[in-house]
């Protein structure tokens, strides 16, 4: 024979390397949250960092423990970064001024109840962070509504220094001559809910110095950075536009219509967009692939419904914000949505 025979390994097609990996996606979601987190810390204090770290530690430990109990290999499941993303979203959802056991309990319930009991990553029906948030809100309503005012020159705010904040989080002690009441304030969403209920017009409520151009002051800036993070995720191909745009449309269109019809009795679309968890929800929570609809038409229905339910809960429901409940309700509808929005297969019908 001519040339010497060479031998090679045999693998099946396709041979082209994959474009993405789960841990990379999770890392990028975390990167995308960094600017908004920095902005949040600037306006609302150091609490977010403590809450995130405690929540992440609790989530990762809970994940490891559950994998152990379930007899599953701990690595690489622990290294996929999904527990840390859950912790980050949960930390973003809770007030900065909470004792350490609140983020810890949130992380544990998110991972254990919403994720591992369903079979771990990819198997959970509900968004773990939102399950964690809902459990915290129902279990610790006082701690979970202890919001603080933004760092603004004309607003009377008191923020703790990092060390003092650590001391408060872990021991519950505040610096002398400082009470919790002095530090906490209602959120713009609370004010609108209460104000409209007591017969004030939206314009009167907005006269409060906590309100900015659209939503709450400080919150608007966090919102801008969340949009920036969302645009990064879109451009990096981590998320697609359907769910965020549908959700924002589902929120803005009905609120816009009612506001146009009765500007005194309803909050405007801009306020809805830049308040509470609307932007976080649109770009980071509703886009969680595991618990969202998978088909394109399904995503539009899913996103739009979350937007509308958020608006409905805020406007007529018992809670000032509705993103978490809207997401959870629609999570439950996902199997049905996906089943009935399957596209027509090529060459059929």
């Amino acid at each position, binding site marked *: 024979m001519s040339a010497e*025979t*060479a031998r090679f390994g*045999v693998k099946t*097609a396709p041979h082209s390397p994959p*474009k993405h990996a789960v841990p990379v996606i999770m890392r990028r979601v975390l990167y995308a949250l960094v600017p908004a987190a920095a902005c949040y810390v600037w306006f609302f204090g150091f609490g977010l960092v403590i809450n995130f770290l405690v929540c992440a530690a609790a989530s990762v430990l809970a994940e490891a423990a559950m994998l152990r109990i379930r007899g599953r290999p701990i690595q690489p499941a622990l290294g996929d970064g999904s527990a840390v993303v859950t912790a980050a979203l949960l930390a973003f959802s809770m007030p900065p001024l909470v004792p350490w056991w609140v983020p810890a309990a949130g992380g544990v319930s998110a991972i254990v109840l919403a994720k591992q009991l369903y079979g771990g990553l*990819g198997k959970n029906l509900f968004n773990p962070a939102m399950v964690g948030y809902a459990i915290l809100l129902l279990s610790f309503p006082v701690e979970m509504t202890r919001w603080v005012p933004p760092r603004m020159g004309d607003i009377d705010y008191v923020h703790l220094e990092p060390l003092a904040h650590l001391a408060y989080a872990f021991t519950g002690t505040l610096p002398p001559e400082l009470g919790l009441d002095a530090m906490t304030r209602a959120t713009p969403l609370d004010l609108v809910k209460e104000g409209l209920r007591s017969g004030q017009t939206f314009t009167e409520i907005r006269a409060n110095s906590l309100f900015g151009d659209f939503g709450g002051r400080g919150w608007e800036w966090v919102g801008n950075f969340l949009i920036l993070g969302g645009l990064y995720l879109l451009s990096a191909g981590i998320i*697609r536009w359907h769910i965020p745009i549908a959700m924002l449309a589902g929120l803005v269109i009905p609120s816009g219509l009612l506001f146009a019809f009765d500007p005194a009795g309803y909050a405007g679309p801009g306020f809805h967009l830049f308040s509470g968890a609307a932007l976080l929800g649109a770009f980071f929570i509703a886009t969680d692939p595991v618990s969202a609809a998978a088909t394109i038409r399904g995503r539009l229905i899913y996103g739009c419904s979350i937007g509308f339910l958020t608006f409905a809960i805020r406007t007529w429901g018992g809670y000032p914000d509705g993103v978490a409940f809207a997401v959870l309700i629609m999570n439950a509808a996902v199997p049905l949505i996906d089943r009935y929005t399957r596209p027509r*297969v*090529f060459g*059929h019908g």
Partner: protein
Amino acid sequence: MLKFTPRRRLTGGMRLPANKTESTARPIHKAFIPPRLIVSTRQHRGPAAVPVVEVGQPALRGETIARANSIDAADVHAPTSGTVVAIEAREVPLASAVVVEQCVVIETDGADRAVREPAPVEPGATLEAKLEQIRAAGIVGLGGAVFPAAAKLRLASGVACELLIINGAECEPYISCDDMLMRESAKEILDGAEILRQLVDAKECIVAIERDKPQAIDAITAAGEALGIERLSIAELPSIYPAGGERQLVDVLTEVEVPSGRFPGDVGFICQNVATAYAVHRYFRHGEPLTRRIVTVTGAGVAEPCNIEAMIGTPIADLIAACGGYRGETVRLIQGGSMMGFAMGSDDLPVTKASNCIIVASAPEVRRDSHEWPCIRCGECSIVCPARLQPQDLVLAARASNVAMLNELDLFDCIECGLCDVVCPSQILLTQSFRDAKELVRSSDAREAFSQQSDERYRLREQRRHEAAVADEQRRDEIKRMLGSEEDRVEAIRAAVARGRERKGETDVG
């Protein structure tokens, strides 16, 4: 030359790194004569041709060495002159796998003597005669699937052929043999296309080329102007994989989705690869049967990536040696593109008519063995799927061996393009699981058929037994009826006994 604008966008699909510039830097290398050729008697999809030469016999270039005895096969010819030294079973890389086939091994003599001076072939009078000529010329689809050209053309003969599509899309990464052939032999391709168009009496002919081949587009356009062929146009396609798939091509050009389970030919569309059109030209204008093809030899593991004209049967090791040999560490040897090609365990396999591309791949070019994460239902796979399937649901059904669900999700519409694997962040081997699932469904269909046959056999046997029992009963009744009532029978027995005694008495002396 007329420009044809595609009617709609590709369903799904994705832009992939082309990796074609390395192999298109040089003109096509001319064929060389390797010391030995291993020519498979099956160079096509369909039954193998039957060897008509014997060991020890001399063979001349263009001589038929194996003859097709089915309409779904094609003849095989000696690519050069030499001596048949063996006819034996060998591994050969065919359309989608390495298979074992009867091969004619020829020791070449370097003289390259032809069986006769080739002369132009007059196309036969009837369609059947023309198809017979194409089959005898060994012409098969050279895009990689090696469907016998005559069998495909016949499909359209029953229906009015709307359109002949000459496929120069070449959408898969790495492959550039069609691009180079179009650059260098555009007139011959268009001439072959016109022969084919007249043969099937197609109303129109479109040469479809992806936009990332501007030189090929220019060459075809110039050749079209020069030849002045009527009913011929050129369509530029966006460079999105898998735009070159037959179903995708028909859909994008005409807005017709070929029905599931049918061929484009069933609905009046014939697709032929540019290299097939070229082979038709070589046969009808120069009398040359198909004995060589252009092969792209590329990848980071080969010293001089290029396109090379190779005799069918050339060992791949010789082909790589002709391209400067190996460079660095080669981890995988692939026939076809990086998306749908298959890995070969060894380079002693011979080139077949399916060998459009040989990728000599280094480690960074191929997928690493890695761990799979759980599916996170991101749905990227369903977005890129050109068949509009839901791979994320299919993979669950495949893992659960749920045949009913696999059928409901239209598993068999999967064209195995491999895009779902490329976009899957969990790095799940989706395409392979779908191939396995198809096997599972086929075997379960077979089991189903077998158990139905068993049921039928059992039913027939029971019926026969029942019929036999009924017949027995009837016979007993018959006898009873013949014997009459109980008293009659007793009487009859007495009478018989008495008759016996009488006889006894008669014979008994005493």
